[in-house]
């Protein structure tokens, strides 16, 4: 490993160093503000180092990590999202937990794990990144440990994530047993040799790996944890689970699927398409039945992951761009929606009932307006980033001619509109809030949260109106990705 390799790794090193700094600072002097600033600063430094590292990309640092434009793009996305979560969590934790400093430690470690996932080109780094992310998440989800709901959610996530890790490991082991290597590219090379058919090892290995990945993405039939964890976890953590953990997993999935010739197997594609179709159906239909805003967003995220899978199976030439753009739009929108939930949450409970939002637009026009903009973006209405994202997914699918999943997408997303409208109806309702269930004493808007939300709002509209600069970036980033048609 030489100096150039180190420079290429600098973004990851910055986050790792940040986590150490937070830990040491917490040992020396307990200060919430200090811990949050350290975490935020290290994420910003990492973000600033991404362009520096890109000067040395693409290169493989050790057999484990690939620092290329693709990985760096996703790293930047993950760091940006984590930074928003720091801003949101600062105001949220200040009103609640007694011990707050360690939260930022877990957050940085989870971010590091996600960044490693985005850059991994080897089963070892894949698993390391995944576990770093998951283990930190157990602690983050159950962070308010005096309450029952977060604890329950944390334990549920722990058990299911551990089980899915076992599936994943078994799948890796099968692939390794057959091909004798754990590097993605080496596996791909072995598979491209004549005579490398779809034997039992390869199929079972892929199926088990997809099971592990599917759990992290929360797609049907591995989605059971999603609503409970979304509901139980503190709102900023939910934002993190919904975006960073899923996005990083998708980054890895796209790379793995592309390099290991999954696109050559109609049966594998059909299986993924089936997962996508049932996710879109189940997510959108089950969301109709929910009364809790966090659960609605949970089921809607299941459906959204289904949409992204549709883009994934479209394959070359548009899949990489479509998946990446959709994820960026989804990150911004989801962070925005959970950001609103976060800043409206009172000290005793999160603002997760529909009644909490009744008449929000008339009480706090900016928050209400942005919340409805975020919901409309999830529904894919124009002027928002979600519109361009949905367009991109449909374009990728139409280019590949996979009409059945597209029609399912269209029909189920229209169903989905119904529950977004339900929340929006409440946001614009003229009646006063239901006196039986008083809304949590509307807390004053914390400055950090307001900054985060304002930034997200600008991005949401900007990407919806003029996505061209980002599209250029994404095209450059996914150019290196091998996606055989």
């Amino acid at each position, binding site marked *: 490993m030489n100096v150039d390799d180190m420079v290429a790794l600098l973004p990851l090193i910055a986050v790792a160093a940040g986590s150490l700094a937070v830990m040491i600072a917490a040992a020396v002097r307990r200060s919430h503000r200090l811990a949050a600033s350290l975490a935020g600063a290290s994420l910003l430094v990492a973000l600033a180092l991404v362009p520096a590292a890109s000067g040395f990309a693409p290169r493989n640092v050790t057999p484990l990590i690939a620092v290329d434009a693709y990985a760096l793009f996703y790293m930047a996305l993950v760091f940006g999202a984590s930074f928003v979560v720091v801003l949101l969590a600062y105001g949220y934790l200040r009103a609640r937990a007694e011990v707050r400093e360690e939260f930022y430690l877990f957050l940085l470690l989870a971010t590091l794990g996600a960044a490693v996932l985005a850059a991994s080109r080897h089963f070892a780094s894949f698993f390391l990144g995944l576990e770093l992310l998951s283990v930190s998440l157990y602690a983050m989800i159950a962070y308010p440990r005096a309450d029952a709901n977060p604890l329950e959610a944390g334990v549920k996530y722990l058990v299911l994530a551990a089980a899915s890790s076992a599936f994943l490991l078994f799948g890796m082991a099968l692939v390794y047993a057959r091909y004798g290597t754990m590097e993605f590219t080496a596996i791909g090379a072995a598979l491209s040799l004549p005579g490398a058919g779809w034997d039992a090892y390869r199929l079972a290995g892929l199926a088990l790996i997809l099971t592990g990945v599917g759990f992290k993405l929360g797609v049907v039939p591995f989605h059971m944890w999603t609503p409970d964890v979304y509901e139980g976890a503190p709102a900023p953590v939910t934002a993190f689970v919904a975006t960073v953990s899923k996005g990083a997993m998708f980054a890895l999935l796209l790379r793995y699927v592309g390099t290991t010739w999954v696109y050559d197997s109609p049966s594998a594609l059909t299986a993924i398409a089936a997962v996508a179709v049932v996710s879109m159906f189940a997510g959108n239909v089950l969301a109709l039945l929910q009364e809790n805003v966090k659960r609605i967003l949970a089921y809607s995220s299941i459906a959204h992951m289904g949409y992204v899978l549709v883009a994934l199976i479209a394959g070359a030439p548009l899949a990489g761009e479509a998946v990446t753009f959709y994820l960026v739009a989804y990150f911004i929108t989801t962070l925005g929606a959970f950001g609103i939930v976060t800043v409206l949450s009172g000290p005793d409970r999160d603002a997760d009932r529909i009644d909490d939002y009744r008449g929000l637009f008339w009480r706090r026009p900016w928050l209400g307006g942005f919340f409805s903009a975020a919901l409309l973006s999830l529904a894919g209405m*124009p002027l928002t980033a979600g519109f361009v994202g949905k367009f991109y997914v449909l374009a990728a699918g*139409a*280019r590949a001619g996979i009409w059945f999943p597209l029609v399912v997408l269209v029909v189920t997303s229209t169903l989905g509109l119904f529950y977004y*409208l339900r929340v929006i*109806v409440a946001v614009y309702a003229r009646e006063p809030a239901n006196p039986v269930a008083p809304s949590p004493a509307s807390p004053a808007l914390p400055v950090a949260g307001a900054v985060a939300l304002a930034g997200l709002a600008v991005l949401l509209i900007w990407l919806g109106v003029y996505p061209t600069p980002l*599209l250029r970036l994404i095209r450059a980033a996914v150019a290196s990705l091998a996606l055989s048609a």
Partner: protein
Amino acid sequence: MTLLWLIVILLAGGAAAWLLERRSMVLARGACLLALAIDLILVVSLWLSAGGRPEAAETAWIAELRWDWIPRFGIGFHLAMDGISLLLAALTIVLGFAAVAASWTEISDRAGFFHFNLMWVLAGVLGVFLSLDLFLFYFFWELMLVPMYFLIAIWGHENRTYASIKFFLFTQLSGLFMLLSILGLVFVHYRATGIYTFDYGELLRTPMARSTAFALMLGFVAAFGVKLPMVPLHTWLPDAHTEAPTGGSVVLAGLLLKTGAYGLFRFAVPLFPEAARLFAPAAMILGAAGIIYGAVLAFAQTDLKRLVAYSSVSHMGFVLVGIYAGNELALQGAILQMICHGLGTGALFILAGALQERIHTRDMNRMGGLWEVCPRMGAMGLFFALASLGLPGLGNFVAEILVLVGAYRASIPVAAVSAVGLVTATIYALEMVQRAFHGKNVRGWKFPDLSVREMAVMAVLALLLLWIGLYPKTLLDTARPALHAPAPPVATAALRP
């Protein structure tokens, strides 16, 4: 650039109205009127500049604007105006005035946000009439949906939540099918030429298999058929029109329905001429069915606004027949019918709204004998009912006769059935006047007659209908270059055998 200004001014007017709400509501409404007035001047000046153009001009476009937007897919910000879009833009602005005036006293609660939404719907509608890039078109198509939804959902009547969600879901689902069709068309074009483009002009002559063309066309027809409405897809309409506040009903009936007709006219037929010819008989039968069905249901209503809503289904049937009859007479008729229906139905909705504001009901069983109480309202109601039934001398007569003459050449049975619609219209329109204004005032209603402001709106709309009825040549001449020019082969050229 003028075209962009047309849209931006409306958007800005809406934003200004929202901001000025705190100062004074009069100021906010004034901002809307000012924005509309500026737009009116711009449109009229475009109209005058177009009037001097020779018939055989190179292109039918009066004004055009083309910028790159998302070059990755060849998406451009491409606006253009020909005679047809000019007429519809003018209609948009006139009805914009009417909607602002109709909301003057009706909407007092959160009026700033109301006007914001109203102006943004108008901007979206204008965008739909002006865009020549299919992505941009879809963008505006969806954009007008959200503020319209808010207009119904926040300021609507009793059943507003149901009606607004139904409206939203119908339009959204059909709109997404159109988006799939647009994408399909773009990729068919890409396979043939290797170029990504969403530009109307480029996509016009895309070669494709007949079955592909038919499937893609159906996506467009779904979206436009819902908006128009084409008969089996119309069920959202009576609910949305009835529950919307007056200003919203005016925009819905006067403008949103026209976007569906315009879409058929501009996109569904010219982009797929072969498929359109195959589909034409079915479309004409659906149109004729709509004429009769709408009229019969209008007759059965007791709710005044519902009656007018069903009469819209009937009138828009003529537009559908006219578009697919495939000759110039019928197309001219369809265009005139779009304008006249917009003006006449807008006026009827304003009257219904004015009545409801005064007596708090739309139920005609509870009315009767209102002529003595409010003679001006009664007279105006009679005038627009006569317009609706197609009295010679008023615009609708010219429009419907042109459609019928054109349709007669294409299909005699369709023309015959459609002609029955004139008779049925007479029945429901006169019945409406009879039940609301004639008879005895058994309930002893007493309320103020139309105010000066309301009378001014009515007078303008009535004069416009009279003008079109007596001298339709002005409008026909404006629209003609668009029907003839070689550049944009709209329906007529496409369907000519």
